[in-house]
């Protein structure tokens, strides 16, 4: 492939991924509202369009038309920059998550991932740590105590859980012997999911992912009863929407990462699709379907947890992070190392 072709394909993939992500994010919000309503035995949004399917667009228009208010005591520049960072990080992370095996079309072989980086997993971790800045800066620049507390809580929480996240990922990397997401997916084959091999690591990763995305039961940065809205208390209009979208985009990325690292990625469970000898495009479509179904199930799990568990206290959050999750992820690492030693994997 020439340089020009690579650029064209990459741009097409970026545009596609962005569109799909934006649609998924807005429908995830709708999905969340409907699932919450279902859990609480009410109806949820069902007025705009059939069963409320146009609700996300109505929400976006409402936010677009609202007045953008910046508090007098806020730092104008950083106050505007923070939501931009949040959105940028949320969407840039998606570049390394593979959604299917390469598509062969018109004589080209196109990998279905925007950037096949050979240190993709580290790239995700690095961008997650950049995401902390959005929240910290938003909290600080608003010039309000609620925002500030939200921001500080959030950065402390995200730093603490990044450690157990990193150690659980290390277990996966030991097995895959690679930092490339595609290699990790392939190393799991169709049934040797990392979730079976290293269940402890799977649990610590999922818990850390909840904490990193600030979802309940770890949503202390925006705990409504204590902090009004946390770091985005002073945000309105599209800036608020940016944070809102970033939060849901982060959920989707967390789900995508869990699927890639622990649930076999785009491969079908217990069944090797490539052994059937189907046409390439059919295989790819089935794999994309399998990836998104796994992701959907995980996202439902996220919402389900939200209405099942109460919020932790801050000291509980910290002690779970440092005294439970961190040692557990270390134990998982040792477990994986022993497995590899014993079975010569």
């Amino acid at each position, binding site marked *: 492939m020439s340089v020009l072709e690579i650029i064209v394909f990459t741009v097409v993939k970026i545009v596609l991924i962005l569109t799909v992500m934006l649609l998924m994010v807005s429908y995830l919000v709708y999905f969340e509202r409907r699932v919450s309503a279902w859990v609480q035995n009410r109806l949820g949004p069902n007025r705009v369009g059939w069963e409320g399917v146009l609700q996300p667009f109505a929400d976006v228009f409402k936010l677009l038309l609202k007045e953008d208010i910046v508090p007098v005591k806020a730092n104008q520049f950083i106050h505007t920059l923070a939501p931009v960072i949040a959105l940028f990080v949320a969407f840039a992370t998606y570049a390394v998550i593979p959604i299917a095996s390469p598509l062969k079309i018109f004589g080209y072989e196109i990998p279905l991932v925007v950037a096949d980086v*050979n240190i993709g997993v580290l*790239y995700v971790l*690095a961008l997650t740590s950049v995401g902390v800045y959005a929240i910290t800066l938003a909290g600080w620049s608003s010039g309000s105590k609620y925002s500030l507390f939200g921001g500080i809580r959030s950065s402390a929480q995200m730093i603490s859980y990044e450690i157990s996240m990193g150690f659980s990922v290390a277990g996966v990397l030991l097995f895959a012997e690679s930092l490339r997401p595609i290699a990790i997916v392939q190393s799991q084959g169709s049934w040797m999911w990392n979730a079976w091999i290293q269940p402890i690591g799977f649990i610590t990763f999922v818990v850390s992912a909840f904490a990193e995305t600030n979802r309940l039961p770890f949503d202390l940065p925006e705990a409504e009863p204590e902090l009004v809205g946390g770091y985005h208390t002073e945000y309105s209009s599209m800036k608020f929407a940016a944070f809102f979208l970033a939060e849901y985009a982060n959920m989707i990325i967390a789900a995508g990462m869990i699927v890639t690292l622990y649930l076999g990625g785009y491969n079908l469970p217990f069944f090797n699709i490539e052994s059937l000898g189907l046409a390439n495009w059919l295989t790819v479509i089935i794999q994309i379907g399998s990836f998104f179904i796994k992701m959907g199930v995980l996202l439902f799990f996220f919402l389900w947890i939200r209405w099942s568990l109460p919020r932790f206290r801050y000291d509980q959050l910290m002690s779970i992070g440092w005294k439970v999750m961190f040692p557990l992820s270390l134990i998982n690492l040792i477990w994986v190392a022993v497995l590899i030693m014993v079975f010569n994997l």
Partner: protein
Amino acid sequence: MTLYDIIFYLFALVTISSAYLVVTVRNIVYSAFSLLFTLFGIAGLYALLGADFVAIVQLIVYVGGILILMIFGVMLTNKITNVQIKTGVFQILPATIGVGIFGGFLLAVLLNTNWLNLNVKDSPATTFQLGQLLMNEWVLPFELLGIVLLIALLGAASIARK
């Protein structure tokens, strides 16, 4: 001028201009924020030098750890609800002269030395190679670093607690 050169000049510009802001802006949070861009620029330079692993470690450790710690330091050592956190400065003139002379000296040394300038080709597997080195030749420094980190962790916790 190739694409590589353009990207280099871009990163160098980002790095140097934001580093200049870091040491001249009076608002501490602005400084910390420009340091973020400096670190990004330097990570970009590493990537250009073919050291992708170092670049990403730079992002994870510096951006995700050290700089956050510093922002915490800023917030915890000031009246944090005050958005305008200023730092005092002193000895600007002597420092400018001194650093100017020193920098000039360094540049003179740099330009008058005949460095080995080979431009080796990129190796595709930096992570693998670094891992090999860390676990074989450099295993003792590696383990010592682990101990240093542990001691630093304990030390920092006990100092901050007092």
